[in-house]
């Protein structure tokens, strides 16, 4: 997530994102939000292309990134971003620093290897068909040898180039004293090629060059699919990071202020946090009084009053006063200390999970090698010369080479991840699907997960409209986050010209000789009304408004996600236990839990209590999905069997989550479990199919009847069956 360095759009700050093409032109890459169709592509490229100074604009629809080359004398990135914003697309600069990262290089290498293997497989198969047909039509031995030699000439360099992907992985895993699928694959390829060369030298009838190359080709398809899925995930994740640009205002030694990216601030620097801004880094307050909304950090919705000397944490929202904060930790170390410790422990515990593919490999490899050895010894005992017995043993290894097994899991993962993406769930890791499939308990965080990150006025229906209208007009002048839902009600009015901010209290204005006040309950003298409302809306924050003697109080709360009840109901209908574990006070949690019909809930949970609860569930044999968004949820996300975060979650939570919910809706979580279960069953079907395939093919090979033709048919046939079966995972997504 942190690969993209993002900053606010200020001209002087965007220098670092430019790539100089030549002395007078530069290029910038922008992550663009809101692109849906061909019309968007055309609009953006045309408008940007016509922008003065722009040389070329090209949009990558897959990655949702726009690359613009422009003459530095005539255009600047801020103006480009401004133009995009006029068109209705929000854009943020995307750092070119890590663009050519290892994964991109790996993907290109895979594609090249796939191309070479495809070319070789086609040509060798062409020659092989001639040889097979020749067995019946009397192809002379010289021509057959010639065809074999040409095949060898193509197959050996191909294996050296394309097969290296498997060889490298097999060597790496063997060095660590373990085994995976690449070990039998590499062994099979090498034995097939070696035996074929010797056969050809001895003018033999059967050479397996086609089988070896086809094996490489099919398995590379599986690898490429796998990479393509990961690439899409990376692209979306990196765009999210850029779109949620984080910057802080640093106070320079001469007293001037300067905006900069959070990761450019050093410990010891002083930053200024204005009301309505998030605290960017952990630090100590040097000067100022304010209230902080810590819900993203602790889950607690009650606001905390802070003053000079108090510690503040990154991610908290400054509500009322201007704060000067001395930074204690650099961006990378920004974390509550106990969260950090818990996280390290929880991540260790997760490591115990063994992927389905690796478990299959652990059973498969010894079995296959033992069968080959027994075949060799058996034929030797029967009285065959050792060279012939060896050939038969090697054909056993070739025909059991896990072609279908290598595709069985990645093919399903790719199709299922695509189905999940269409319902708005981004898959972070392939094996997460297997873990999600077994889910029988869901633990939900409340703040930011069951509720939306934005606010609404709970008691709006009970308030007199005329007063609300005036309050809304006054709220227009305030930057306090709590005034945003009130200001949204303003009937296209301009703010009162006399509006003045009263730091730490609220905002006041004069209108027709009356004094209007909007702000804290005490500021407006509305304590009695606020106490009454607190009984009804325990989870809400109170904002007072007074005109002369008239007073009203707005109860502002974070509303439930529109489909939270539906999501909980469908989880329960699927037989999954649902519980809420929140860091908030017990009354608001109880209110939400009752509203959703969740009987099991826990309030006031610190990060370590959340982790304990998950451990308790897991040791009770439950398979737990944790859904959470806050920094305080991160250890719990890591401690759960599988985890999910809404897209509005903190970086830290997203980094721990296996899945991201891309929209505002929560019910895709329930659908995701269903798709994962379907995917898991398809994976198991594919694995069982591979077992059955081997039950049929191995006896043929042991009896010495596995000619190259049989091997080619068996291997390609089984791979196709497995791939077609994987496509059924699409249907699971369409049904939802």
């Amino acid at each position, binding site marked *: 997530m942190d690969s993209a360095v993002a900053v606010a759009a200020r001209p002087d700050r965007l220098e670092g994102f430019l790539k100089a093409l030549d002395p007078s032109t530069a290029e910038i890459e922008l992550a663009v939000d809101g692109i849906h*169709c*061909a*019309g968007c*592509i*055309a*609009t953006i490229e*045309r408008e940007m292309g016509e922008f003065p100074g722009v040389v070329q604009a090209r*949009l*990558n*629809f*897959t*990655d949702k990134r726009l690359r613009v080359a422009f003459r530095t004398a005539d255009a600047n990135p801020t103006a480009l971003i401004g133009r995009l914003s006029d*068109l*209705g697309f929000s854009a943020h600069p995307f750092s070119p620093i890590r663009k050519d990262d290892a994964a991109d290089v790996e993907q*290109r290498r895979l*594609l*090249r290897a796939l*191309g*070479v293997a*495809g*070319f070789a497989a*086609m*040509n060798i198969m*062409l020659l092989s068909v001639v040889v097979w047909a020749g067995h019946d039509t009397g192809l002379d031995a010289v*021509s057959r040898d*010639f065809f074999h030699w*040409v095949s060898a000439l*193509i197959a050996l360099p191909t294996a050296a180039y394309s097969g290296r992907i498997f060889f490298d992985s097999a060597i790496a895993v063997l060095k660590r004293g373990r085994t995976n699928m690449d070990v039998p694959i590499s062994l099979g390829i090498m034995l097939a090629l070696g035996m074929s060369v010797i056969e050809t030298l001895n003018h033999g009838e059967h050479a397996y060059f086609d089988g070896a190359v086809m094996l490489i080709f099919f398995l590379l398809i599986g690898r490429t699919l796998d990479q393509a899925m990961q690439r899409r995930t990376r692209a979306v994740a990196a765009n999210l990071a850029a779109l949620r640009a984080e910057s802080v205002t640093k106070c320079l030694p001469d007293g001037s202020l300067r905006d900069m990216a959070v990761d450019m601030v050093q410990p010891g620097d002083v930053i200024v946090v204005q009301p309505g801004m998030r605290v960017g880094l952990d630090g100590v307050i040097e000067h100022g009084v304010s209230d902080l909304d810590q819900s993203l950090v602790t889950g607690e919705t009650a606001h905390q009053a802070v003053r000079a000397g108090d510690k503040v944490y990154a991610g908290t929202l400054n509500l009322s006063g201007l704060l000067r904060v001395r930074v204690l930790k650099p961006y990378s170390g920004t974390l509550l200390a106990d969260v950090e410790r818990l996280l390290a422990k929880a991540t260790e515990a997760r490591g115990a999970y063994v992927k389905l593919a690796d478990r299959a490999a652990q059973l498969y490899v010894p079995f296959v090698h033992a069968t080959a050895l027994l075949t060799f010894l058996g034929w030797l005992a029967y009285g065959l010369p050792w060279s012939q017995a060896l050939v038969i043993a090697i054909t056993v290894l070739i025909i059991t080479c896990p072609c279908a097994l290598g595709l069985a899991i990645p093919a399903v993962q790719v199709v299922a991840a695509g189905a999940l993406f269409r319902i708005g769930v981004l898959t972070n890791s392939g094996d997460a699907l297997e873990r999600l499939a077994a889910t029988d308990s869901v633990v939900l965080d409340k703040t930011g997960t069951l509720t939306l990150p934005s606010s609404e006025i709970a008691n709006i229906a009970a308030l007199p409209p005329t007063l609300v209208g005036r309050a809304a007009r006054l709220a227009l002048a305030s930057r306090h986050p709590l005034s945003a839902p009130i200001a949204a009600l303003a009937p296209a009015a301009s703010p009162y010209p006399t509006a003045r901010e009263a730091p730490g209290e609220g905002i006041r204005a004069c209108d027709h000789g009356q004094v209007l006040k909007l702000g804290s309950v005490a500021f407006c003298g509305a304590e009695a009304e606020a106490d009454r409302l607190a009984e009804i809306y325990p989870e809400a924050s109170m904002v007072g408004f007074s005109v002369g003697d008239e007073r009203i109080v707005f109860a502002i709360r974070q509303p439930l996600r529109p489909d939270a009840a539906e999501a909980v109901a469908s989880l329960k209908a699927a037989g999954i236990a649902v519980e809420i574990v929140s860091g908030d006070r017990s009354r608001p949690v109880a209110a939400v839990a009752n509203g959703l019909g969740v009987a099991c809930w826990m309030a006031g949970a610190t990060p370590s209590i959340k982790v304990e609860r998950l451990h308790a569930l897991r040791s009770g044999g439950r398979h737990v999905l944790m859904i959470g968004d806050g920094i305080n949820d991160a250890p719990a996300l890591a401690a759960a069997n599988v985890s999910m975060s809404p897209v509005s979650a903190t970086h830290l939570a997203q980094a721990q989550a296996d899945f991201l919910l891309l929209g505002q809706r929560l019910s895709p979580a329930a659908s995701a479990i269903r798709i994962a279960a379907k995917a898991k069953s398809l994976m198991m079907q594919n694995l069982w199919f591979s077992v059955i395939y081997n039950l049929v093919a191995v006896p043929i090979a042991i009896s010495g009847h596995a000619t190259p033709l049989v091997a080619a048919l068996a291997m390609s046939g089984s791979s196709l069956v497995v791939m077609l079966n994987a496509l059924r995972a699409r249907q699971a997504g369409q049904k939802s």
Partner: protein
Amino acid sequence: MNVLVYLMPLALGLGGLGLAAFLWAMRSGQFEDLDGAGWRGIHDPDDERDQT
């Protein structure tokens, strides 16, 4: 079978041509934006209605 002397190199040459075309397409970035290529294909630049 003398025909093989020029048919073989021809077959391999044609296959090699395909491979070269694939590698060229990859190098020139044609696999960078697979979804976008599909959308661009159905977009009619003369159609003014979808221009905002």
